[in-house]
């Protein structure tokens, strides 16, 4: 069994305040979690705001280094990556899906330019890519998410619908041909129909491309619907974990139970 991602007893402490009134905040305490190469999956991470979900995501993405423990990707300790080339190669394999596409895209910049720039950045393995190569890659990832280059060519963000932007953000993440996506609250702003089409897309990417996806969300219902495994976090700790349906059908930890009970259902009284 080889591991794609190995989060090994990881912790992260932030120091806050000035010299005299330092206090430390343990955002993540001793979390371990593995994803196997051979078993691509959607792993949901749920929990209240401030429970450490985004800090965990930042460590997986290599944007922050753990204070304790190690994050290994393909067997390599992320903290040990030094050279620019290695760093680039790592970033290509683990891609974030931007949180809110309405903020992620610069309103004054055409969406296709942004995709071309990303492609030019990552397609450097065989020297500088040609214009055609870049366009072909961008078109391919757009088709992967159910769009076409023709639909987004020359468009500014406000000229696209919310659904088109959301998909474009996922297409952008697919450009470097990653193995793991980290999606932090990708659906908090969208209606149920669009939300389901995005999580269905996640399912398709897992099945078709063998991608694994860490899906950070407040939405327990879509987590139930799409994910293979779930972890429930509170105050930097994992309070419950397991098969998503088993955990949500029958939560054991008092916090998981409270969380499930607070979910509003569309069956009104």
């Amino acid at each position: 069994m080889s591991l794609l991602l190995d989060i090994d007893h990881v912790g992260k402490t932030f120091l806050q305040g000035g010299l005299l009134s330092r206090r430390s905040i343990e955002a993540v305490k001793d979390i371990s979690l593995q994803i196997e190469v051979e078993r691509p999956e959607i792993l949901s991470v749920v929990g209240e705001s401030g429970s450490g979900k985004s800090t965990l995501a930042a460590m997986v993405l290599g944007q922050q280094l753990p204070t304790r423990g190690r994050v290994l990707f393909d067997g390599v300790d992320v903290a040990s990556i030094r050279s620019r080339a290695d760093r680039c190669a790592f970033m290509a394999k683990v891609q974030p899906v931007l949180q809110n596409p309405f903020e992620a895209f610069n309103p004054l910049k055409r969406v296709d330019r942004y995709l071309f720039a990303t492609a030019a950045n990552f397609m450097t393995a065989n020297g500088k890519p040609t214009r055609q190569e870049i366009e072909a890659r961008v078109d391919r990832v757009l088709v992967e998410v159910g769009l076409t280059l023709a639909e987004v060519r020359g468009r500014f963000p406000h000229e696209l619908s919310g659904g088109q932007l959301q998909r474009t953000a996922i297409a952008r993440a697919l450009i470097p041909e990653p193995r793991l996506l980290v999606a932090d609250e990708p659906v908090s702003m969208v209606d149920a129909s669009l939300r389901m089409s995005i999580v269905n897309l996640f399912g398709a990417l897992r099945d078709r491309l063998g991608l694994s996806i860490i899906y950070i969300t407040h939405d327990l219902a879509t987590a139930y619907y799409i994910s293979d495994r779930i972890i429930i976090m509170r105050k930097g700790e994992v309070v419950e974990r397991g098969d998503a349906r088993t955990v949500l059908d029958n939560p054991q930890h008092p916090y998981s139970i409270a969380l499930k009970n607070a979910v509003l259902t569309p069956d009104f009284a």
Partner: protein
Amino acid sequence: MQTEALLHTPKAASEPILAVENLKAYYTTKAFGIDRDIRAVDDISLTIAKGEIYGVAGESSSGKTSLIKTIVGAIRPPLHVVGGSVCFNFEGQAYNIYDLGPDELQTIRWRHLSYIMQGSMNVLNPVRRIKHSFFDFAFAHMGLDRATFWDKVREHLRRLDLDPGVLDSYPHQLSGGMRQRTTIALATVCTPEFIVADEPTTALDVIVQRDVLTMLRDIQRDLGSSFLFVTHDMSVHATVSDRIGIVYAGRLVEEADTPTLFRGARHPYTQHLVASLPKIGDATRRASLSGRPPSLADPPAGCRFHPRCPLAMDICSKQVPPLNPLAPRHRVACFAVSGATS
């Protein structure tokens, strides 16, 4: 309009507190010297009764925020009103928002309306104690002496189950949920007759969300205010709204009492929306609609849903289906629904 007002006046047969008629508001942007219109609010008519909670649903970019900005007169370029009217009725007095001078509009907004904007949860000044935010925001508009003003603020906080001690805190000392609730207390301290809230709980975790919704409903009940409540989240509507209007690509496509909307929706988009709601305990596959919501810069002709609609007919790409009454308090804009083609 006469019949419509009658049809949509629930509860007491009171005058509607809000009547929106044929409202159109577009963003006009210039690219390469060419004006381009984004038709974010396109011919919307609705009424809201006194004491009613009217929910507006629809996905992001469908025009919800633009609609309510236009309703409360909080628009600025490039958004502008192209046609229609917005009329409030406060204490027997009619106010046509787009006939008022800027000063009058300000007075109405302060005296009768409270608008909790999307993403406004950080209006509390981060470097000052919360009492200063209350003072700056409300004192000048309430016409009370200081002592009475603070009594009123404390009473309002207690009514909302908030410890008046929060007034002496700094925003960063409160949890996210407390901050959110304090912000709502601030927005409603002038006891408005009409509250407008745009996605007030989006991106909150479920436990905080539940607290905030309970609080909003308590305020509405205590003050007897009317409430225009915008969210894309149908589960929230199911819990809060008396009546729901569904917006698709800038147009109102269906409107009904909440139970009717969930059990007997007739517009194909609403039907799909309700059917696609995920639920814990139910992992059956939900189909995605084909295609995507249109861009409002270039919406399809006729019914804007026609490229994705399983029932689309010839007429659907040529004519705009009117939003017609199907039953009392149930309006649908669809050629395939009998009764809607009069």
